[in-house]
């Protein structure tokens, strides 16, 4: 096999913890290895103009980063986190913020482009909550009918678990980069 240069979609995962005063007390950045088959299925449905009930013309939407406490190594067929932490203020829960995406930055000097996709999780449970895994969902729905399907596309096991004390905020950032 001849090599043209390299594969050109990279994903980085940044995790950051702030205390109740907004001070960053923990930050790590990993090179993610995280796309699972749901990403292929979603892209496939988009590529083939998949028909859903009531119409076709598929669109990608509903980004949803999730966190969990499972410690099982991700596999290609994963359809969700091993043990997702629920949204709320009960014991073992975290309050889920909104997903936020930044406009892509194009760098013509090094032929790269990237955008970030992030979400914050606040611990209002009254006790510690440990986060060990991160993942993300998207939907592919018909523009015409709104019907469609949900796909689990990313799953990362954190190299080091993070214990969030009460009132601390965890921010998860996926940076999706392409280089040409």
């Amino acid at each position, binding site marked *: *096999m*001849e*090599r*043209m*240069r*390299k*594969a*050109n*979609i*990279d*994903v980085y995962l940044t995790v950051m913890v702030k205390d109740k005063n907004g001070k960053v007390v923990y930050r790590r950045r990993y*090179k*993610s*290895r*995280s*796309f*699972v*088959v749901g*990403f*292929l*299925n979603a*892209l*496939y449905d*988009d*590529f*083939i*103009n998949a028909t859903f009930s009531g119409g076709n*013309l*598929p*669109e*990608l*939407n509903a*980004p949803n980063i999730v966190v969990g406490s499972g410690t099982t190594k*991700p*596999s*290609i*067929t*994963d359809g969700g986190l091993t043990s997702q932490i629920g949204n709320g203020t009960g014991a073992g829960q975290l309050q889920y913020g909104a*997903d936020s*995406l930044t*406009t*892509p930055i*194009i*760098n*013509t000097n090094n*032929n*790269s*482009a*990237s*955008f970030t*996709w992030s979400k914050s999780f606040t611990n209002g449970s009254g006790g510690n909550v440990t986060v060990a895994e991160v993942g993300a969902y*998207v939907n592919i729905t018909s*523009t*015409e009918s709104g019907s469609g399907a949900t796909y689990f596309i990313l*799953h990362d096991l954190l190299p080091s678990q993070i214990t969030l004390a009460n009132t601390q905020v965890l921010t998860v950032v996926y940076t*999706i980069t*392409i*280089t*040409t």
Partner: protein
Amino acid sequence: MNVKAYLKIKVIDGNGKCTYYRRYRSRSFVANFLRTIFSNLSGQEINNVNTSGGSYTISYHDSIIVNDGSNDDHFGILIGSGTSAPTIIDSNLSQVISNGTSVGQMQYGAVSVTSPVTNTSTNTGYFTVSRTFTNNSGSSITVSEVGLVAWSGNNFQSNQYYLIIHDLLPSPITVPNGSSLSISYEIQVAT
């Protein structure tokens, strides 16, 4: 890094014999692809560049459709004769070889997209996008670049054609008259 694209190229002569085969690791996604995914996910409208070089606003309803029919060179896999190195802001091939049987043209087959295949032993998955181009122009044609163009759809969407992958071949391919060229993009993930 766990999304890879491979480009497979095969030339078949008039007797059905394979006379050329190469498989390359692609370096190929360009900015339009990233912008479209961003717009879809964020619900924000931003500018993209169509294959004519014109700027347009991506609707977050835009699709990424590539399964074009035969005898059409608007979207799907396209081939060209340009030799410029791809850049992140490319909006089309440098020199598209158009559909037809005239001098310098090739007949575009329909685009085929196979269902994803998953291998749990290796934690990998892939699907392929393929198209065959037949040379009935009366003389040889040299192909030096390949790209994948998507269609946004034409309902609530922008109704635009936009480049998402662009590869310059390490070695140009000469396709004799009467032969066909098959191109496949294999998009892989590994967990």
